């Protein structure tokens, strides 16, 4: 009876799982089909709205150009992300170790976070070489969630464990390395997951700003340039590659999160019960 109930539930769960994959794909196919039909029946010219089939053709035909641009954008994103991770965690640790530093610098971290990046980018391009400016933009957008989450994590240590470390006379370094950082790990990884998507946004915004200043070769710049040329199919193609890159970054970081926490943290264990 019990086993039967369990079997029934698991088959329902499997159906649920299949639906979660099949439904979005079905929606996509329907929308693409309608889109294709509308373009063909209405005779809409490609510089206004290209058909999905044309966009796919463009991705293949412009493959070399697009992949070069993609790699430029991805490398910037990755560099910005790594800097944001190091900067965010580093600053949070520094703040945690010294109240004075925290009081002195935290307001400015907030200022960087709340000022729209689109507004900062042109100014950065005035003072910095283009690549550096793009990188700094990616960093500014991405580092704050890492900083905020890591700070939260470092302050969320089990009080009894803090007492235990005091009882055994642990040094500052030992408390940080053996207690605070591992406690904060789930928070840090959560911050990194947000930072991954944001560093892509930062890179794109900066590229667009830089592109309008007359230089650049990333995907975002390609979109701007194709816009000037009314090459709308290429704009769509580049846009699709950007979304795919964002999705891949998100799931890659989710995977890292899962692998790092699966043996001990509630968030990663919940599904196994």
């Amino acid at each position: 009876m019990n086993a039967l109930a369990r079997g029934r539930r698991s088959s329902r769960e499997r159906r649920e799982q299949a639906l979660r994959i099949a439904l979005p794909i079905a929606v996509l196919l329907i929308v693409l089909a309608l889109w294709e039909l509308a373009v063909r029946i209405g005779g809409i010219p490609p510089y206004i709205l290209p058909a999905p089939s044309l966009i796919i053709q463009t991705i293949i035909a412009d493959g070399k150009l697009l992949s070069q641009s993609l790699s430029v954008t991805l490398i910037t994103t990755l560099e910005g992300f790594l800097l944001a991770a190091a900067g965010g965690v580093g600053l949070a640790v520094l703040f945690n170790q010294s109240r004075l530093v925290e009081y002195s610098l935290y307001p400015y971290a907030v200022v960087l976070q709340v000022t729209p990046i689109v507004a900062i980018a042109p100014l950065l391009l005035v003072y910095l070489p283009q690549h550096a400016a793009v990188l700094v933009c990616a960093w500014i957008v991405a580092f704050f969630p890492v900083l905020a989450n890591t700070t939260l994590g470092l302050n969320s240590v089990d009080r009894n464990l803090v007492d235990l470390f005091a009882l055994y006379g642990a040094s500052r370094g030992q408390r940080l390395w053996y207690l605070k950082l591992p406690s904060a790990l789930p928070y840090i990884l959560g911050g990194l997951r947000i930072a991954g998507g944001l560093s892509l946004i930062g890179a794109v915004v900066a590229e667009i700003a830089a592109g309008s200043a007359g230089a650049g070769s990333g995907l975002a710049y390609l979109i701007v340039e194709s816009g000037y040329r009314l090459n709308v199919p290429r704009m769509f193609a580049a846009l699709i590659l950007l979304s795919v890159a964002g999705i891949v970054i998100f799931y890659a970081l989710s995977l890292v999160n899962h692998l790092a926490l699966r043996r001990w943290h509630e968030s990663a264990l919940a599904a196994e019960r």
Partner: protein
Amino acid sequence: MPPIADAFPAAPLVALRDVGKDFANGTRALAGLDLEVRKGEFLALLGPSGCGKSTALRIIAGLSEPTEGTVEWPAPTTPILGESRIGFVFQEPTLMPWASVLENVMLPLKIKGTAMNEAADRTATVLDRVGLRGFAQAFPRELSGGMRMRVSIARALVTEPQLLLMDEPFAALDEITRFALNDDLLRMWQALRTTIVFVTHSVFESVYLSSRIAVMAPRPGRIFTELAIDAPYPRDSSFRLSPEYGAFCRSASVALGQATAAGGAW
């Protein structure tokens, strides 16, 4: 009833003299608390919840400073914070969830900088002692509540402390697990010849385990009376069923009732 046990007449290992403790919010947690912990004894601190038992324990551990009065360690070497002469078991197992049982138990030795080989040996020995051989690589999450508490006890014992402080360690466990851990704790106490101060609000647990009970009264926390439980060790489940045990429980219960009443109404 004699106020003091004869079984452990030795000089005190640690003594609280006229200790008072005020919290920052103005609560007077302890006032005029006098307590001697004698070498080798199993002392239970029994009292209603909120009577400052845990606060007293934290003061002995050095985790909290008394507002007035002193903590004396008459023995030649004064166990100060960081000397690892004190083991502490919290009400919760308080394990690091990201670390294996082995790493959790080895933590105090790692903090002290004990050589890896020696630390590994001592950890294996103490895991054996608490009955967790074969669970070294498990994570706390994968263990039952009772087993987690065993890990916590193993961690407290791995430094071979002179004094083991336990703050209601079994309060959250079911009765079967609690009885098993009571027996194991008594066995370890006798084998290691250490001194234990055990905070509890259970009359039955305090009588079963301890050689002496200090009954505390609340608001402010102080020692109300002391009872010697001079039944011989080793004790086992037959002690739980003996008329002697019943009589001890009755007098401890009466003392606890009087102490609670002495604290006044809530």
